[in-house]
Every structure is written in structure tokens, then in C-alpha cells.
């Protein structure tokens, strides 16, 4: 469905996306994980044929976006990072108007809108103006809008950023259903839990480069240990104690607020720390996540700017 080879976008001297390669197959849920400024949104806009690439090859649905932009966009659903529904129109009108932009006839749009209202759980809000919707509802509407043309690829840029936990879970449930229906999804996120929930396969981006690629599980296997022990000794003492316990696991990361010990057996490692006479203020044993993969690959956390 999508194939990128040496895909590059430069703005003057600044290279936002620096020669990345990836493929997305039909029915796959593909993620682009990275911190803000990694080049995720720029990559998304190039795929969406709303931003021309500087160099490299890019094929979407078998077409070149530089030459066949409208024909590609006709079969994409785009959910931008920032909801941009029309504030003067109602929920139903937003869907209708957007469907018209694709040249879709009324006879198709009427039943399609009913389905999408049900899908987005917005049936009660059909005649409500956008301003009166909650953040989660607006987001669901934007996703429903992205589905109006029955797209071959649905592109979601940071789909749940800024939503409260409950709204996120509702949204993930909706997206998971789409995935089960066989939709092809491309998702960017800087939340590792979101990537783990939604993505079959992902690339990790940092500063315009792809630094790793694989399934969430394979990336964790490759770049992190099975478990992690997080211990805190207070900001002043973390750096001081870290060298004294770093050898307990396979690897250690020292963050300003905590020490991470990567290990195959978390509980045992924690006991080993205590046995050496160190008693952390707080401690946590957990499974490794994509956050740890990212930390390993870039030396920074995903939330870092």
C-alpha cells in the first residue's frame, strides 16, 4: 500500500525527514513512534499527499503523490493531530460536507453518515454544534470524518494525545474494531502504550531517522530486557548510588528522577539492591515497554523535548 525509499524532506538547511525507508502492507496497522520533532508528522503529510518530498521515492496505492495527489487523496482517510472540524456546522453536517469534497453522492452519504455516527457513538449528538462536544467526541468525529470515503488507508496523527484516560480507551476500542475489520492504519504517536495497543509493526523515529523497526514484541526483545526495576533514591542520591548497583542487571539507565535496571528477573534484582544495603524511596518492577526501547536507542525518553 505504501512504499518509501530514501524519503527525505528538507526545509532550507533543516532536514525534517532524512532518507527513511519503510513499507506498509494491506491490512497492516503500522506505527511511527518518536518524540515531538522526530519527523513523524512530516512523514504523515508526505504520505497523505499534502506535502511534497524533497527527494527519495514514495509510492502510495501504486501512485506517485507528486503527480497523482488528488487520485491518492481520494482513497485516504486523514485524521490530523489537531481536530479541524467546522465549528459553525453540526456533527452531521461536518460529515456530509466532508463527504461532498470527495465527490460522493447524497445517496451514498446518507446511510454512510448513519453508520459512522453509530461507529463514533455520536448518534445523540448528530445535530449538536462542534463547540458543545467534549474532546473525546471531537476526536471520534474527526476519525468518523476520515472514514467517510471508505478509505483504503486511514492515517492517524497522534490520535489520543491530549485526551483523558477514559476517552483514550474508548478511542482505542474504536480503532481496534477497524483493525479487526481489516483496515490499513498508519498511526503516529509518542505514547508507547498506544503503539503497543494499536500497531502490528512500527518504526522508531528520532531526528528524522528511522532508528529501529519491528513488531512491538520484537523491538522489546531486541533492545530491552524482559523486565525493568525502577528505583528512586531522591534526586540528589540517584547519580551517587547508580554506579554501585548498575551491575545487578544487564544494563542500567540513570534518569534525573530515577534509575532503571534492565533485567530478566525484576523481583530478584530488586532484592539484590536491598541486600546491598540500599533502600529506595520507591521501587517498581514492570515489564519492559517501547519506552525502554526508545530510551536505549536514543538516550532520551519519549516525553523529552
Amino acid at each position, binding site marked *: 500500500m505504501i512504499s518509501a525509499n530514501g524519503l527525505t524532506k528538507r526545509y532550507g538547511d533543516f532536514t525534517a525527514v532524512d532518507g527513511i525507508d519503510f513499507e506498509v502492507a494491506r491490512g497492516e496497522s503500522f506505527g511511527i513512534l518518536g518524540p515531538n520533532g522526530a519527523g513523524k508528522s512530516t512523514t504523515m503529510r508526505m504520505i497523505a499527499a*499534502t*506535502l511534497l518530498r524533497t527527494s527519495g521515492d514514495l509510492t502510495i496505492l501504486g501512485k506517485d503523490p507528486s503527480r497523482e495527489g488528488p*487520485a491518492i487523496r481520494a482513497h485516504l482517510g486523514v485524521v490530523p493531530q489537531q481536530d*479541524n472540524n467546522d465549528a459553525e456546522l453540526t456533527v452531521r453536517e461536518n460529515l456530509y460536507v466532508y463527504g461532498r*469534497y*470527495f*465527490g460522493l453522492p447524497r445517496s*451514498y452519504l446518507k446511510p454512510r453518515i448513519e453508520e459512522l455516527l453509530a461507529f463514533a457513538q455520536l448518534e445523540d449528538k448528530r445535530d449538536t454544534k462542534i463547540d458543545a462536544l467534549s474532546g473525546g467526541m471531537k476526536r471520534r468525529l474527526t476519525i468518523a470524518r476520515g472514514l467517510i470515503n471508505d478509505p483504503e488507508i486511514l492515517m492517524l496523527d497522534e490520535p489520543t494525545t491530549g485526551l483523558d484516560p477514559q476517552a483514550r480507551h474508548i478511542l482505542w476500542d474504536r480503532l481496534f474494531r477497524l483493525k479487526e475489520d481489516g483496515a490499513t492504519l498508519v498511526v503516529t504517536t509518542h505514547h508507547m502504550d498506544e503503539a503497543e495497543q494499536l500497531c502490528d509493526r512500527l518504526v522508531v523515529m528520532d531526528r528524522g531517522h528511522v532508528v529501529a523497526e519491528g513488531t512491538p514484541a520484537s523491538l522489546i526483545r531486541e533492545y530491552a530486557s524482559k523486565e525493568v526495576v525502577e528505583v528512586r533514591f531522591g534526586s540528589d542520591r540517584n547519580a551517587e548510588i547508580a554506579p554501585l548497583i548498575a551491575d545487578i542487571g544487564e544494563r542500567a539507565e540513570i534518569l534525573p528522577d530515577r534509575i532503571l535496571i534492565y533485567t530478566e528477573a525484576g523481583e530478584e534484582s530488586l532484592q539484590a539492591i536491598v541486600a546491598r544495603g540500599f533502600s529506595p524511596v520507591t521501587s517498581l518492577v514492570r515489564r519492559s515497554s517501547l519506552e525502554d526501547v526508545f530510551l536505549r536507542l536514543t538516550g532520551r525518553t519519549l516525553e523529552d523535548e
Partner: protein
Amino acid sequence: MSLVTRAPAHSPEVDSRAARRGALYVAEYRLRSMWKWRRSIITDGLGNPILYLTSIGLGVGSLVNANLGPTGIDGVPYLVFLAPALITAAAMQGVMNEIMFPTLAGFLWDKGFFAMRATPISGGQIADGLLLAASARIVFTSVVYWLVLLAFGAVGWSSALTLIPVAILAGISWGAAMLAATANVKDDSGFISLVMRIVIMPMFLFSGTFYPLSTLPIAVQWIGWISPLWHATELGRWLSYGMAMPPWQVAISLAYLIALGVLGLILARRRFERRLTS
């Protein structure tokens, strides 16, 4: 939950229709938005001419006519002299609402243009669609204004086919120019009031609207010469009551209005597309 309505979304006919008719779909959307403002559009369309014609046309007019006799300025009653300027000014002011607000909203406030540009529609088609829908407002404003002028006895029936088209031409041309200007606005704080203060007000006051441009000191007459309102007003006066106007001046005024519109739309299309794809 199942999404089953599938068939027409993927036909090639739908694709090529979308690519061809993008501007119409944008205009359809804009008309739908404007419909929500129909009360204020109608109030404005009727109230504006009634207030101006009563206060200035009749009020100031009675003074002018009392001083200069019934053949006030240019050998016609003041109201007749004023009418072409007012209808043109109304068309030009009316179009601003349908150009500046949606353009600022589309690029800055709710960023709706970026959503449109994610469909097969191009930036140029968005610009076209906006101007097309704004033209509907211009037609409405001009026709209503003309009807009120008729009721006040400021124009005759025969002017329907001349004065209304001139007002519409001026409105569309000005709308295209404003579309190009607004498409460049990055920070909207005060843009609209700035335009009103340093463009619209001086233009309204110094375009020979209320008295012939030639009565102004030569030092400020240039404002009239570059003002589309003045060119349109001159054409309107020539057409409605036969004001003396040499053919070369008719040609220049007409060419000026057409050129402003064409250039404005070309620049706007280019600016829209560039801004939505960078």
C-alpha cells in the same frame, strides 16, 4: 457496528468528478455556512441602503439640492449622483465578510482548509470556491440595494441591467483582491480592523463617493485613481444617468476592475496551494 456502505466511494467516476468539481463543493459548503447567518445577511442587505439613503441621500441631499438647485451635482439630484457609489460600496463591503472571515478561519482559527486539502480538492479550488460563494452574497446585496434605490427613486428601471452588473463586477474583483491579501495573514490579531481603518474607510471617503473626486485637492486625488470603488462608481454614474466619461476612461476603469479581479484570484490560488502544502 459495521461499516458496510461501500460501493460508490471507490468508483473512478467519483474520483474524477471530485477532482473537477472541487470549487463547487467548497462553494456548497460556504453557502451552507452562510445560510446560518441568513438573518444578519438579510438585515445588513436591507438596513444598509435604507439607513444611508435616508440619512445622507435625503438628509445631506436636501442641503446639497437647496444650495445647488434640483440639478445638484453633475446636473442630477444628489440622490441620483450618490446611488451608483453606494451600491458599489455595499457590494464591496458585503464581500469582505465572506472572504476575510472564512479565510482566517480556514488557515488559522479552525484550520478547515487543511482538512479540505486532505481530500482530492486543491488549494486553488478552495480559493475559487470561496470567491464563488462570496459572489452569491454580492449578487444578493447588489440586487437588494438596487431595489431600495428604486424605491427611493434614485434609479430608474433601466439601470437594472447596468448598475447591478457594475456593482457585482466591483464586488467580485475586490473580493479576489482581499482573498489574495488575507491568504497571506499569519497573525490575525487586528488584521480585520486594520484593513477597515487603513483601506476601507479612506477608500470609502476619498473615492468620489459623496462628491466628485475633482473637488478634492490634487494631492489626495490619487487615492481615488487607485481605488476600485472610484472606477466602479464612475462606470456606474456613466451608465445610470449618463455622466460625461470619455471612452478611454471607460476602458481603463473596466480594465482596472477586471485586472484586479484576475490578478487577485491568480495570486490567491497560488498562495492557498502553497500555504496548504508546506
